[in-house]
């Protein structure tokens, strides 16, 4: 008799595309979908809502920490083969323009055609953190959607729903779910092991996560990089 196949472990990836470390974690998790016996569920949330709900502050408010993180992100993205460039005005991108429309659009796609969610997420990261392009205007979101392979009609239709109550509610719910898991930032990764949720914050707990999932960490697997530039 064949050995029973182990059920895939669900790993929820709560994220906001405003966060550079989140892009790192996103690419690593996408690469490990093939290697680990996991069912990766992308959960777009709203980082500003997380910060408010957890009474947290963005880390770069400490100048020396901000300077360190600027270099840290470049070193990590280089090693992990994620094509990252700092935008010319990161403060404006992160704190003025924000991500509410992007978050709602990702949510609308998640609700209707989640098969495009991974690539749409990637295209939004490439806009904001590779090409220093806008992610707030409808035209920007449409461009990302089409690069993600979403048919134009469908993309326009989904874009028209981003102010619908159902979409706003769903983004709010996902954000609250993350807060209920103990989230205080992005990314928040929840691995379900033996019926228990194990929450991880950040992009630097993969070796530990592997250990808890009963899997092996092979490093960032740059050879499996999907972000095409």
């Amino acid at each position: 008799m064949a050995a029973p196949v182990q059920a895939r472990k669900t790993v929820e990836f709560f994220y906001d595309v405003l966060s550079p470390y989140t892009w790192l974690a996103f690419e690593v998790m996408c690469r490990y979908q093939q290697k680990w016996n996991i069912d990766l569920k992308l959960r777009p949330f709203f980082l500003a809502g997380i910060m408010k709900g957890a009474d947290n502050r963005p880390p770069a408010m400490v100048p020396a920490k901000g300077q360190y993180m600027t270099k840290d992100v470049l070193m990590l993205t280089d090693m992990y083969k994620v094509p990252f460039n700092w935008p010319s005005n990161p403060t404006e991108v992160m704190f003025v323009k924000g991500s509410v429309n992007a978050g709602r659009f990702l949510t609308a796609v998640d609700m209707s055609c989640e098969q495009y969610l991974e690539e749409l997420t990637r295209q939004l990261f490439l806009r904001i953190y590779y090409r220093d392009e806008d992610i707030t205007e409808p035209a920007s979101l449409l461009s990302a959607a089409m690069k993600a392979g979403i048919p134009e009609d469908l993309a326009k239709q989904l874009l028209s729903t981003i102010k619908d109550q159902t979409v706003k509610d769903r983004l709010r719910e996902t954000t609250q779910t993350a807060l209920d898991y103990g989230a205080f930032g992005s990314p928040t990764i929840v691995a379900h092991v033996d019926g228990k949720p194990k929450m991880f914050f950040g992009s630097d707990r993969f070796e530990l996560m592997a250990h808890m999932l009963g899997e092996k960490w092979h490093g960032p697997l740059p050879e499996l990089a999907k972000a095409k530039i």
Partner: protein
Amino acid sequence: MADADKKVIELFYDTISPYSWIAFEVLCRYRSRWNIDLRLRPFSLAAVVTETGNSPPGRVPAKLKWMGKDLMRQAYFYKIPFRGRKDPNNDMANKHNINVMLLLTAVTMDCPQHLESLTRELWLRFWSREEDITQPASLEAAATAAGIPADQTAALLAKLQDETVKARLTETTQEALRHGAFGAPTIVAHVGGKPHMYWGSDRFLLIADVLGEEWQGPLTELAHL
């Protein structure tokens, strides 16, 4: 292998910092695997936090809760007997003080061969056995357990408030700040004549890379504890 080939790695640490304990044990284990010259640099985290306008991470309740779990998982993964404290925020504010770091500084100056074992003993007292480390008798007990002879211990305790010791602690802390430190642990790897600074105990892949070495996991078989 010639010592001149070894790459210098400085670990700036404060025993109030549990993540510094992880970095400390990992680097001690990697001395036998990587071609490094590990220099332990006790500094004052409180001074670094104040000077950089930083704040302790435990200010955010959800973050404090997560850190408690994170540290227990890491302790298990790295085989370090960290057990936490019932009231970490309160204890870090009230049950640890600068005398601990002044003692480690005095040891650095007078008998550096005991620095590693005393550092470990202080972490065990504070973060594993929830014992006092503020009273002179506690510091004496730690020094004894670390293998420091009685007369040396007495001499060290007698000079904690000397200007030379305070100045040395301040200098070490300033050096870390010049490297861009804002927290603990702060690791500085000197490669090709350049200092490379890393914060935290979760950048060993990057550190291995800059050293031209390989990360071989937690090396629990080399655990000192």
